[in-house]
């Protein structure tokens, strides 16, 4: 079976600076894959290439959605990538601060709805049904994420942990087959991280969404990842299960800067 995401030899140059060098990565259906590495390794750049913010200088990005055809998505527009089923969160939370929690999630439904200008003005039966469906589905997602009580609060007034969860809820509203989470546990205390772990596992199990996440928090990475890919200075230096990566000397050296088993 094809991997839902298949990246081959991706290289990304910014003028003279090579941010990524021939990176291979695969996410299989139903996997939780972690992308780790020291700061500046190119992890967010990798995400940006997959999602269409940058077009990779070289290499191929293939997706195989469970409900669709396999296709190459190099250089596809950001919103097209989302329509195809890739949704993401951001390293620095990018919510819509002056919209309510519910509305933030409703934005996620935008690409799964159709009403246009005429529909907006005339507000006929099908438009009204679609609008109600958007509201209902968004509310549902918020209930399942645990933000049902804050539905009408402005996003900017939410506490930090809730904001991170809202970003995930919003991404889920786009009905992705692959969810890319950029440091979802950043700034969280251990209890919140524990809850996040459960949330991610449930998203994978109940929504059947594959997960690719960038993380620095090793506890959550080792705890829930099916596979881990390690980047350093733009190159993939290791790939494997949590147990394999934990023992991998190359990885240890990259993080600690010396050969521990010398």
């Amino acid at each position, binding site marked *: 079976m094809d991997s839902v995401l298949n990246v081959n030899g991706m290289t990304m140059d910014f003028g003279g600076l090579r941010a990524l060098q021939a990176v291979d990565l695969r996410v299989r259906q139903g996997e939780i894959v972690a992308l780790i590495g020291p700061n500046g390794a190119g992890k967010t750049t990798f995400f940006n290439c997959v999602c269409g913010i940058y077009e990779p200088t070289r290499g191929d990005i293939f997706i195989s959605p469970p409900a669709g055809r396999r296709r190459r998505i190099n250089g596809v527009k950001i*919103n097209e990538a*989302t329509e195809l089923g890739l949704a993401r969160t951001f390293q620095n939370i*990018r919510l819509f601060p002056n919209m309510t929690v519910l*509305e933030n999630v409703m934005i996620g439904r935008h690409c799964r709805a159709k009403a*246009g200008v005429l529909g*907006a003005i005339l507000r006929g039966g099908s438009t009204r049904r679609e609008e109600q469906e958007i509201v209902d589905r968004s509310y*549902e997602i918020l*209930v*399942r994420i645990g933000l049902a009580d804050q539905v009408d609060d402005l996003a900017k007034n939410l506490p930090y942990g809730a904001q991170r969860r809202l970003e995930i809820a919003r991404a889920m509203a786009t009905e992705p087959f692959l969810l890319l989470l950029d440091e979802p546990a950043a700034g969280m205390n251990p209890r919140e991280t524990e*809850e996040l772990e459960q949330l991610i596992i449930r998203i994978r199990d109940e929504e059947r969404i594959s997960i690719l996440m960038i993380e620095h928090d090793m506890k959550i990475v080792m705890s829930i990842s099916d596979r881990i890919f390690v980047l350093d200075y733009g190159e993939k230096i290791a790939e494997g299960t949590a147990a394999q990566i934990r023992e991998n000397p190359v990885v240890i050296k990259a993080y600690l800067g010396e050969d521990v088993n010398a």
Partner: protein
Amino acid sequence: MKILSEFRKSFFISLWFMFLTFPILVIRVNTIEKIVEWRWRNMAFIGIGSFLLSFVWRYLLASKERVRKRAEAGEGEEVKPISQRVLDEPWVYRPALVAVGLFALAFPFLFSSYQTNIMTTALMYVMLGLGLNIVVGLAGLLDLGYVAFYAVGAYSYALLNYHFGLGFWAVLPVGALIGAFFGILLGFPVLRLRGDYLAIVTLGFGEIIRLILENWNEFSFGPSGIANIPRPGLFGLKLSLHEATVYLYFLMVALCLFTIFVVNRLRDSRIGRAWIALREDEVACQAMGIDKTKTKLTAFALGATWAGMVGVIFAAKTTFINPASFTFLESAMILSIVVLGGMGSIVGVILGALILILSPEYLRAFSAYRMLLFGMTMVLMMVFRPQGIVTNVRRIYKYRERETDGKPLQA
């Protein structure tokens, strides 16, 4: 003592302003008669005025800081001002709306032709403000060349009438369409531009269009403009000047209601939300599947439609147009209406337009200071109340939970 230091601060500020305004406000040179006029009274005004205002200024800035610090600390929700909470009660706003409606209907019969004309102008700016509100308030695209669409609408009526004899009612929808077309045309090149560059380029477009109208004599008849533009007809009846004024007034009322209806619908719709998301965070909104290009162009086009229509009305109302009516200052005026009213707020824009257009008329003493008022409004609103006079409240939706799937994902 603190009061003493405050007094000292204000004293020095007042001295500073007296110094600052001395050449321009006090001295007036008449080079022909070779005399110098010294207007010391102005200096006194400035001295006293700045002294008092500096207290007010510092107080308002301090209270703004307090509100900001409280918001940062996470406490203190957005408390709506008492006036707005009262107004939100149905038993207040429903009769108020009815009263306003009755007043609007009776207006031309209670007041003179001249007053009716002024009100019509105010309503035109309401419509222009609502149109620009879509572009600037909802979508967050600072369009400083909005007047271009206004000009395009006016000239389409004037020229189509001149060359083909088309009447007002025929051209009104055409004006809207041409406006929308130009909205897309002028929106296309600015798609990739960031906030302030977008503003300047649109300003440039506005000026370019005005300069073309002024200089391409064969097409637009240049600075002398086009005259004898017919007023809107009423089934071919011949209307006296007064009757035509009243007719135009009711026409404007109807069009304003139409505009309010459409803009309201647009704002609370999928496309409206997309605009607001675009304004809030362009990258995140794309990541959520919103096509940035389509959304921006739709905003430009829909915003420009209203300006096009008002342009047609303007031509019909004044029966004479020339490029001098379509300067950057017009765009700035409409912008200040949106800024005063509150970006994205329909009620706010209506109030803003009425305040900014009517107050110079009714406060006759201040009418010469009209543009000063516009300029000051923009600065003061941005510094003290950037959200506008009407706080924009996000809509509360009614949602239904599906019975089966209520299981939360959280443990």
